[in-house]
């Protein structure tokens, strides 16, 4: 039997060896690398061009909106009729009876579930975390609740939680996708807490799904699972946060940015409060 296997192996290798390229052939790696560089250059130029055109167009639109008379408005009585602002807005009758058009998740994807606190808060803080980072878990589970009670719930700070999965953490990105997918179903906070609390478990066995399923009702879990595994819009939420982190030169997690300023280096409760208090008081 073993002899047969050796014969088979030799027989196949003998035939495959006919494909060996000649020993004298040397692929030219320098030329190939130069070719890649040439190919990359227009893309970089294209990106800058796109960014410049987009920024110019956005600025032009903003100016046009400021100076022009509106030709359409949201007043159901028409632009000439005053809006009765004393009445609370009611949904249009059709909205209650007509099913919403079938839209792909990519169209109606939500992102505001990552925010907490008043939009009018004088200070906006962004917290960048990686779900597999032990320091992030400590900070999120122990310090953030105290900061929330003191600053977020009192309207002084608006807190935005952002994803920054690090490349060396195998399941961090998947965890971020699950959290963002849970946000679409209204279970963001429950899943974030669960992921940080059970970090040691799922980062070892990779069963992010199993941990999330314990924080989300079974009825909603299927949607969360589908979104996390295959929805590009959810991936884009993670990617957008990542891009922001890179733009802001963030090099570690957790990182707390308040009104654009990185707090720290130490993120103890005392240190963060010492940084936040003057910012809040100035407003």
């Amino acid at each position, binding site marked *: 039997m073993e002899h047969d296997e050796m014969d088979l192996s030799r027989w196949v290798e003998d035939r495959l060896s006919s494909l060996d390229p000649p020993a004298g*052939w040397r692929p030219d790696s320098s030329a*190939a690398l130069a070719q890649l560089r040439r190919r990359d250059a227009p893309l970089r130029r294209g990106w800058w061009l796109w960014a410049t055109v987009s920024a110019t167009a956005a600025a032009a639109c903003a100016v046009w909106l400021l100076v022009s008379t509106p030709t359409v408005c949201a007043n159901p009585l028409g632009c000439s009729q005053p809006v009765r602002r004393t009445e609370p807005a009611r949904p249009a009758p059709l909205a209650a009876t007509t099913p919403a058009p079938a839209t792909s998740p990519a169209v109606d994807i939500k992102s505001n579930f990552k925010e907490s606190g008043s939009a009018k808060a004088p200070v906006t803080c962004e917290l960048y975390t990686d779900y597999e*980072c032990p320091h992030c878990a400590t900070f999120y589970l122990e310090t953030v609740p105290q900061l929330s009670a003191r600053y977020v719930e009192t309207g002084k700070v608006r807190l935005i939680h952002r994803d920054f999965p690090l490349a060396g953490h195998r399941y961090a990105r998947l965890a971020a996708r699950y959290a963002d997918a849970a946000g679409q179903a209204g279970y963001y906070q429950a899943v974030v807490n669960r992921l940080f609390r059970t970090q040691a478990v799922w980062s070892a066995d990779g069963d992010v799904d199993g941990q999330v399923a314990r924080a989300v009702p079974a009825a909603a879990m299927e949607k969360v699972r589908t979104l996390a595994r295959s929805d590009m819009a959810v991936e884009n939420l993670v990617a957008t946060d990542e891009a922001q982190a890179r733009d802001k030169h963030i*090099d570690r997690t957790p990182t707390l940015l308040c009104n654009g300023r990185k707090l720290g280096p130490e993120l103890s409760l005392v240190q963060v409060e010492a940084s936040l208090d003057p910012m809040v008081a100035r407003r």
Partner: protein
Amino acid sequence: MSQNVPGWCWYIVNAPVSSLGGAIDPVEIQADSFDFEAFFHTHYERIARVIARVVGDHGRAEDLAAEAFWKLWRTPQAHGESAGGWVYRTAVRMGLNELRTGRRRIRYEALAGGLPHSLTPEEVHAAAEEREQVRRILSILRERQAELLVLRSSGLSYDELASALGLNPASVGTLIARAQQAFRKEYVKLYGTRRNGS
């Protein structure tokens, strides 16, 4: 967990790796620290040779190898420790796809040499026919089996194969044996057991 442990997980390598059993600070190796150019120079030739085995045309093999590295360059998630496996897998798939879709150009293979000058025209013809037959079999095998055979015959170890194709290292030997059986079965079915030129 201790209260307010000051520490971070780094995005950029900027600290020495802690010894085993040391602090809990993991030092992250991330995409931007990936030295693409060094990686390219280390692997390009071998990748081009893997593809050349499949497509035959050396010029085309170099194009496809460059394409595989271009894909790697555009996929930051693949940078890092797994880049080697990723680029070998991509390269062999590109080669096999080329083979299957029949877009292969083999006109340079004979000109590129590799055969002893002492061969007679009949022997040269037989060798070319043999290569055609082997490639034909590779094109009709299951994708995973063809990938295993090509990469193994290109000199990848079992561990490298496991890494490149996402296999359990313990099962690589069994999978190769099955791929070899499938190869011989198809070969004998199409061409018999007689070797060209023999």
